């Protein structure tokens, strides 16, 4: 049983039902969980880029690009927060765009004169791996949450009025009695 649920039981009264065993299937799908993990990763990476921009620039042989790295950090944090929201798809899409920008930036740092070329190659590999995860996640989210394109079911036979709409118009008006207390109405 979930530890949080057990802890929350202290707020319940003795006659309230308590969780005995957790159901296997959740409304939260694998792609939703992946999006959440990527969101936290994005925020973590963003903080590192913001706080440790100088060290990162040094490691990648990109001295002078500290401002750019901090901007990328802010972008990562924003994308992370979007990925943690109720609709993570835009967040993951923005991460994919960010991955592309990161790859272009790192490719530019692969110049021959860069003494940290090896580090850049490792970073490129890492970004490529994360990009694959982002792409898998985005595809999973789309297939899980997208509405199928039409044709839509026709509910035009569902009036809710057994005697028809015309008979229903004003049918309750004449008979209505106002409640005794109309305070606030």
């Amino acid at each position, binding site marked *: 049983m979930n530890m949080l*649920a057990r802890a929350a039981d202290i707020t319940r009264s003795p006659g309230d039902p*308590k969780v005995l065993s957790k159901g296997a299937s959740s*409304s939260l799908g694998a792609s939703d969980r992946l999006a959440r993990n990527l969101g936290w990763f994005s925020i973590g990476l963003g903080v590192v880029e913001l706080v440790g921009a100088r060290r990162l620039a040094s490691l990648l042989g990109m001295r002078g690009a500290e401002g750019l790295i901090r901007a990328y950090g802010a972008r990562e944090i924003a994308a992370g927060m979007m990925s943690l929201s109720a609709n993570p798809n835009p967040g993951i899409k923005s991460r994919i765009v960010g991955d592309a920008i990161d790859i272009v930036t790192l490719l530019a740092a692969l110049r021959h004169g860069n003494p940290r070329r090896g580090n850049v190659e490792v970073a490129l590999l890492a970004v490529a791996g994360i990009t694959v995860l982002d792409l898998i996640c985005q595809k999973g989210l789309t297939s899980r949450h997208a509405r199928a394109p039409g044709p839509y079911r026709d*509910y035009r036979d569902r009036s809710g009025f057994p005697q028809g709409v015309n008979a229903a118009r*004003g049918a*309750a008006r004449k008979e209505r009695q106002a409640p005794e207390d109309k*305070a606030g*109405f």
Partner: protein
Amino acid sequence: MKALVWHGKQDIRCDTVSDPEIEDSRDAIIRVTSCAICGSDLHLFHNFIPAMLPGDIMGHESMGEVVEVGSAAKGKLKVGDRIVVPFTIFCGECEQCKRQNFSVCERSNRKKELAEKVFGHATAGLFGYTHLTGGYPGGQAEYLRVPFADTTHIKVPDSLTDEQVLFLSDILPTGWQAAAQCDIEPTDTVAIWGCGPVGQMAIRSAILLGAKQVVAIDCIPERLAMAEAGGAITINFKEDSVIGRLDDITSGKGPEKCIDAVGMESHVSISQPDTLLDRAKQMMMLENDRPHVLREMIYVCRPAGILSIPGVYSGLIDKVPMGMAMNKGLSFRMGQTHVNRWTDELLRLIEEGKIDPSFVITHTVGLEEGPEMYKVFRDKQDNCVKVVLKP
């Protein structure tokens, strides 16, 4: 027993939980025969309503058969009675209950101190909702304990099916209250934002209460088709200008009465830039709700008109044009539904065949499929409008 349990944001599971027990002499326990997923369950699902805890049982639209009755409730209920359970728990004795303001009952919220700190004053206890409203276990379960059961029930005759009466628990009286508090006149145009289950009930209520025209606004084709079936003129806001169409329909004067059946999670689109800003603020925790519909209603409503708000809002909202509302002399009427204020009248309308709320049901499944149906309902997949669960 089995129950749909909240384990965190977007994580609902069908768990095995202990059975509820009578705690107070006014309690009763029912075997749930039908329950439903409500639009406001989605706000809990998304964790937009604060103070949910892992292990909370969901659901506030339930009905069933009484299987156990506390000693003090025995005069009003007996084992075997078939009842619908209103989502608002009320004592029937406090000052507010005597005024039929059941959703602000002064005694039924068992976590009153918490609610008072957040709201200033406590409101009624609600089933399957936040701990700000008592944290009572909900009815998406095989059994449900009903506190204050001698008052918190609606007895229903065997001649009507579960599907015909289940929505007396919430969406039918909620739609009805939304229309009733508009004080509809036969010359009125009533504009209703949102064609979800509450919007559909508000449309039927406005028709029954004699509105001249009812206009329904949404972007989901099958929901607009259902609204049209109920007698509404429809506006698809993705295809048409809401303001332009409402002006055409009302000869440029605007609707006298506006109903917000959308609430805190309005649709987000590039064509409505304010919704993008709200979404960004919501994600950064700078704003709780997305009040696009409120802004639009204030803008389009005829001066001296009424805005009725059954849609749920949870907290703080930004950029609501209060000056516009004040200068136009608009009245705001809102609140959780005083369910039992309306249910005698609504049950009679159902028995007389003037309305059959079962029209809104598009999916009926077992409780085990509940977690998946939360997703289907949330994503409006498979033309889903309303899900009924059979425990």
